[in-house]
């Protein structure tokens, strides 16, 4: 029973965890790409990695935090422009292949020895190089604080301040996305998703709208990378294809083309993921099952279940928890 409570606490802790906020943020950006505009961006982790590098390197060099955030956003914007300008005219699966390759190129450059003095090469940037200026911003007093069973220090890596900052940023961006998607601009995006040619016939520049969506969603993805990096470290190999695929699972789980879908998806995904892994580990350690499933295999089984979840979601409920099947962008060319 005590064990069960521990597992439950860990799982509930994931609701507020900074990583959950980071994935929610990345999924909000992806939602703008895929949910509203119908772009198959398979390189969201590349945007996140660039955002994290922009933030981390600026702070490491001694820049102020607002500049670091601006540079992170700028990194996402520039990447989206470089990526989008030539490729947005390509068909859906080509765009997917180009974006996943571009994200991989970013990762390869990040882990290369070429710019090691800035990026830290394959081992990445340690958090201690850039965390201090961030923690200095905290208005919270020293010490710890508990909310029910969840207790964290006030200021630090895995702290209340990180959580407040992360979720505050998510809330702001969510408000922004809600406002722009219900504006005339947002309706044009949805029109592009439904029927590109019809929108073109109305005299709208489809290409320009797609590029704007890619840029804004990419900048949001870069902010997601910042949130991801703040409590951890910037390691290029942790921000690769698997991360992109997890962001997709989060988005499709919550519901594409809905405002709260990405946040709900992230919360449900990480709570269930943590519950499943800690639960399986506890079962494996405390019962006879351990002879068949060792606790190291739990991670792998967890990963397999994520893959199966993604497949089942796309096949049986592509609109996710909150979505509307009519608003789904899979039918685009």
């Amino acid at each position, binding site marked *: 029973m005590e064990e069960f409570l521990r597992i439950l606490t860990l799982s509930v802790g994931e609701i507020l965890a900074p990583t959950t906020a980071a994935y929610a943020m990345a999924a909000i950006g992806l939602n703008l790409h895929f949910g509203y505009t119908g772009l198959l961006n398979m390189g969201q982790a590349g945007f996140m990695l660039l955002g994290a590098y922009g933030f981390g390197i600026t702070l490491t060099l001694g820049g102020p935090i607002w500049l670091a955030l601006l540079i992170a956003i700028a990194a996402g914007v520039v990447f989206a422009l470089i990526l989008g300008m*030539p490729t947005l005219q*390509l068909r859906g699966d080509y765009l997917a292949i180009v974006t996943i390759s571009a994200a991989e190129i970013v990762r390869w450059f990040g882990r290369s020895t070429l710019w090691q003095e800035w990026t830290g090469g394959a081992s990445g940037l340690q958090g201690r190089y850039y965390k201090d200026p961030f923690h200095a911003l905290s208005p919270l007093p020293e010490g710890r604080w508990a909310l029910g069973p969840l207790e964290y220090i006030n200021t630090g890596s895995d702290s209340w301040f990180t959580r407040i900052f992360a979720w505050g940023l998510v809330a702001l961006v969510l408000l922004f996305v809600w406002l722009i998607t219900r504006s005339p601009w947002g309706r044009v995006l949805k029109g592009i998703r439904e029927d590109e040619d019809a929108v073109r016939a109305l005299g709208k520049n489809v290409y320009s709208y797609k590029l704007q969506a890619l840029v804004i969603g990419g900048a949001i993805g870069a902010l997601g990378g910042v949130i991801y990096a703040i409590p951890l470290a910037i390691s290029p190999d942790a921000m690769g294809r698997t991360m992109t695929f997890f962001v997709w699972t989060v988005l499709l789980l919550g519901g594409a083309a809905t405002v709260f879908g990405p946040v709900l998806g992230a919360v449900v995904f990480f709570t269930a993921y943590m519950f499943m892994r800690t639960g399986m580990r506890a079962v494996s350690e405390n019962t006879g099952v351990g002879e068949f499933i060792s606790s190291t295999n739990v991670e792998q089984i967890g990963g397999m279940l994520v893959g199966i979840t993604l497949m089942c979601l796309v096949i049986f409920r592509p609109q996710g928890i909150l979505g509307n099947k009519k608003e789904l962008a899979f039918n685009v060319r």
Partner: protein
Amino acid sequence: MTADRPAIASRARRFLAVLALALLPALLAAPPAAASADTTCQPDDDTACVAVLVLTADNDRVGDVAVTITGADFDAELTTVVDGLPSVEVPSVGTYTVALDPATLPADQQLPEGAAAEVDVVAQTGATARAAFRVGAGAEAPESPSATAESEATADAGAGADTGAGTEADSEGVGAAPEGDASQRDFSWAQVWQQMGSGLRFGLLLALASIGLNLVFGTTGLSNFAHGEQFALGAALGFITINQMGMPIWLGAIATIAVCAMTGWAQDAGIWQPLRKRNVPVMQLMIVSIGLSITLQYVIQLLIGGGSERILSQNPRPIEIAGITLSAASWLSMVVALVCVLGIAWFLTRTRIGRATRAVSDNPALASATGIDPDKIIRIVWVMATGFAALAGLMWGISFGSFNWQLGVQLLLLMFAAVTLGGLGTALGAFVGSLLIGQVVELSNLVIPSDLRYASALVILILVLLFRPQGILGRRERIG
């Protein structure tokens, strides 16, 4: 000079080691005498060695430390020396535990707090597995990989000019990282020729794998993101059947291909055909294949674990043909790949089913109007695609030495690059594109750092999509 070989070719890249030996005058400058005094066990085809070194925080070796090496039916004691690398011959391949006696450490060079006094190493024939301990104030505990045969970076600074190969622990574990970068090395045409040979090997194996990807795309319109995992599954099952179950290579290969072809059949019967019947859009299918690829990736990790594995534990035998030195297994793999590719070409152009396949690729509706059953053809294509991907993966694992569970995802993008370059949906295009990508990957380190060589292929992929999206041999109408 042989004493240097295990150190350089630790990642089973003997062909490059031989190249390095032939081409790097700097290596020749490494005194052989010192090297032979360095070690007391010479690894060869039938001998596996375990060596021990204890390093201070400043990478100086510590002498007179007692170490015991224990394994199945084996027990040995060693004492480290300051100017050498003592090693013992172990009777069989497998895991050995190397334990250090902390009492024999110098008083000012104790094990750091929390560092393990014993590590496990995996001994392979033809290699020296090193166990490294780090001692002294401020020393960080060596990460566990430093105790495996793969990473011998710590100790080899004195052994030769080549510091790139060991330290560049390629976490992706795909293929061979060439020694060093262009900047550290003298340019020579013989070396370019050798690298073109490696590129041909890369290209032929890539072609065998990517033809299947292209056939599936041609007949169903699906960009199958799980194809890379099918490739890695071939290597993983090859490792299990040949290395772990001890089957002869031919039998292991047949078993591997049979199992993988079955997965292709089962996939089409269980997933893809029902979804086609429901008229699920292709983009949705693509995301289903991504889910499948995540699943298979973790299945492979479950099967072979998280580390690098070798299918054949013997030392590869280098053979020189036309000035190119590759292992015998590599040459054989290249021949098999070429024969298979030609066989597929013959099948597609000369047999009834092959012609029907091309007809379905061209226009499924028209094909079914002429009495071809597209579902039957697509089923055959899936079985072929997964079977040949498995064969390619198996031969990759054998000829490139070691591989790990990430092999599939890494190769998938190169396969996409190859088929896009050649022309999506055309079998010949995949072949031409693969050969070109193979050359690009293996020659790119002449101009850019070798850790960016895969990035170079992906840059080409993007450039092709921008300027000639139909590829070299593709037709214009296939692009959107």
